[in-house]
């Protein structure tokens, strides 16, 4: 496994890292699933239409999962993306219906989402309360706001015709996919190159040590929750834009989808370990798997069982890597 003779620090070129091993494993699984898909449906699976289809249907998760990865890295859980996203999507429709330009409406609703996320993170870190409960409470609050905003139903009438500007398809590529790719790349860079990512990881790995190292828990945890809310809100806005309808139930199970993508990608639910790259692959694994099962005509109940089993398998694999591979 490791290069046992590489004792000299400067000479060892290829240095194994735990994250590296994990990403390699998860990527291998992704490739295997793709090969299976290719074998089952050699024509349909690799077609451009199908690939775009996979990406579009996973764009929401791909948009919000990188920041969810940061939340998990910090040792927290965010259960609010479903509510925050729905609230932003509904507010977006309300603003646009009231005559605000579409772009301004989007930014305003995302900003409101960001404030909610910030508050959530602030309460969790300042008062040292469990993130699961506090974010769940914020999920209810924001979902309630979304329901009230949509009048208990959906908003479709009176929306401006150009509300779908944000989610157009340009030369065969839908914009949500473009956003998702930009966001994933941005967070790959952020994770690799910023002090912020280092501090968040340190907090998740050992919050006492981080505190005694002068790292601000309040600042960083508030920031990750605000960021996660921003991208959950963006996902909600895009859904409203894409369908020209705002529905408070637009993102069912969004938070779990994001968390599953992270965990499949090797992110430790207890914090301190995880990569945006792994999270991206995790999201794609779910997407491709669903796509294959759809092509095979499996009903959604069966699909749920398969997804559950895959999740358990992924956790077992990650656990095995963590305990067996001593890097």
């Amino acid at each position, binding site marked *: 496994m*490791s290069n046992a003779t*590489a*004792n000299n*620090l*400067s000479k*060892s070129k290829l*240095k*194994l*890292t*735990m994250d590296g091993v994990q990403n390699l494993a998860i990527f291998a699984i992704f490739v295997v699933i793709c090969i299976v898909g290719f074998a089952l449906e050699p024509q349909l699976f690799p077609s451009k239409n199908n690939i775009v289809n996979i990406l579009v249907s996973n764009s929401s998760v791909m948009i919000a999962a990188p920041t969810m990865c940061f939340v998990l890295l910090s040792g927290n859980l965010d259960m609010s993306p479903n509510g925050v996203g729905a609230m932003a999507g509904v507010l977006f429709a309300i603003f646009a219906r009231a005559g605000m330009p579409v772009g301004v409406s989007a930014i305003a609703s995302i900003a409101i989402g960001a404030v909610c996320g910030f508050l959530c993170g602030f309460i969790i870190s300042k008062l040292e309360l469990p993130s699961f409960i506090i974010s769940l409470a914020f999920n209810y609050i924001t979902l309630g706001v979304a329901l009230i905003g949509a009048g208990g139903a959906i908003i479709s009438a009176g929306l401006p015709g150009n509300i779908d500007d944000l989610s157009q398809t340009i030369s065969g590529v839908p914009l949500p996919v473009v956003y998702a790719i930009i966001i994933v790349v941005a967070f790959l860079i952020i994770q*690799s*190159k*910023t*002090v*912020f990512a*280092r*501090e968040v*990881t*340190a907090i998740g*790995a*050992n919050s*006492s*040590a*981080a*505190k*005694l*190292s*002068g*790292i*601000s828990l309040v600042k960083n945890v508030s920031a990750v929750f605000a960021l996660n809310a921003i991208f959950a809100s963006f996902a909600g806005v895009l859904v409203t834009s894409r369908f020209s309808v705002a529905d408070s139930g637009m993102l069912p199970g969004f938070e779990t989808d994001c968390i599953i993508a992270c965990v499949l990608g090797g992110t*430790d639910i207890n914090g*301190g*370990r995880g990569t945006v790259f792994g999270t991206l692959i995790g999201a794609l694994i779910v997407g491709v798997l669903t796509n294959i099962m759809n092509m095979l005509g499996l009903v959604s109940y069966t699909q749920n069982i398969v997804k559950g089993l895959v999740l358990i398998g992924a956790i077992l694999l990650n656990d095995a890597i963590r305990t067996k591979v*001593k*890097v």
Partner: protein
Amino acid sequence: MSEYVLEIKNISKHFAGVKALDDVSFNIVKGSCHCLVGENGAGKSTLIKILTGAHPKTSGTVLYNGKDFAPNGTREAMRSGIGCLFQELNVVEKLRVEENICLGQEETKFGIIRQKSNAKVFEVLKRIDPSIDPKMLIEDLSVAKRQCVEMAKALAMDSDVIIMDEPTASLSEEEVRRLFKIIADLKAQGITIIYISHRLEEIMELADYVTVLRDGKHIDTKPRSEINTRQDLIQMMIGKVIVEDYQPNDVDESVKMIEVKNLNNRKLKNVNFDLYKGEILGFYGLIGAGKTEIARALFGVDPYAGEVLVDGTAVKTEGARAALANGIALVPEERRTQGVATSLSILDNTPMMNYNTIATKGVVNKKKEVEVAQEYIEKVGTACRNEQQSVAYLSGGNQQKVVISKCLNAHPKVLLLDEPTRGVDVGAKQEIYTIIRQLAKQGCSIIVFSSELPEILGLCDRIGLLYDGELKTFIKNGPEVDSQQIMHVVTGGN
């Protein structure tokens, strides 16, 4: 039947190559109060853990009432009659007294708890302290009363040996009296007490026999009648302290790096001291004397009243970040929980206190990041495969070097080290001492907080002696320092 309830024969215990106990043999007389004394790390706790089945022994035998005794877990030891009051109490705070007492031994039928069980425990509890209502929540009880609950549990299991590990550490004077009374009662019933304490006056009062351990070795077992003064005990405990290669540091007494005036908080009482440039100052005291509290107050992570001047300027330090900005860094007491993030690599841990050395405006220079990590690996001599290695897979000594690297990367003017070599093997200890001495030579001012006397005597120019939150006195280190006198002060003597 022999007069001994426990015969300990040639017990050894090794932890990853470190000998915690080395060929220890002695006997414990039935119905006596047998005190175990020794400095921190002498092996008392390890011995207790073996007797209570928490750790298996590496070699040797224990005879309990003449029969071979090797309990498989604490439960088995308890069942066979060896009860223990651990330093950290094993009570569940959110439960009621009665629920705690029955915990794990509820009489059940098909999983349903039958009422009226453990009537005996309540009887015992009543005898120990009638003021405890079984319906009360544990969290509403004082520590002393919680101990009574624990003791009732142990007694109700027909224990004939009860081990008490520092039972008086958090008791008031009155509660201590009550405990001693209980101990006397127990002895009268033929129950054997194994009593561990740092407080020598308690030992002198309670003991029938005293066993002294030092560095994992059995030094002596004597009846109380053969011990005349505390000094005798102290001498047995510390033996001959060899002040190994203490060399005076180049102290510049014209520059006060830290001035502390009337430092007070929950634990500390009016602490005053100065730290000079280039000096290694030591604070010595037993567990609970207030060493960590001084360190944490100076580092701004515990609240305090009083005045602290750093480099001549008054500072009110709140939070580690402010302390680091003032040029103070801390190597905390608990390495694994406070010092390093073990799941992360050396590379990730090294810059934690000061990301400015690897980043500009929040953007990390990855080349610099590797260079900084490698620089400190070389500087402090961390033995590792490379900087990507997880700290979890380093030895204790090397983990501590990572903590020191972290602090050095913050370029401190004052470095606080709280128990810098706890749980570190002998070789790494010396290496850490060398690092500390070198830092002082480079003009860094250092405070070492330690409960190991040889460590303090080997490193420090001046030594502050602490007892129960008070700074008793300062002594200047040198060949004439009397370690027995030091021991006398830190165990509460005048």
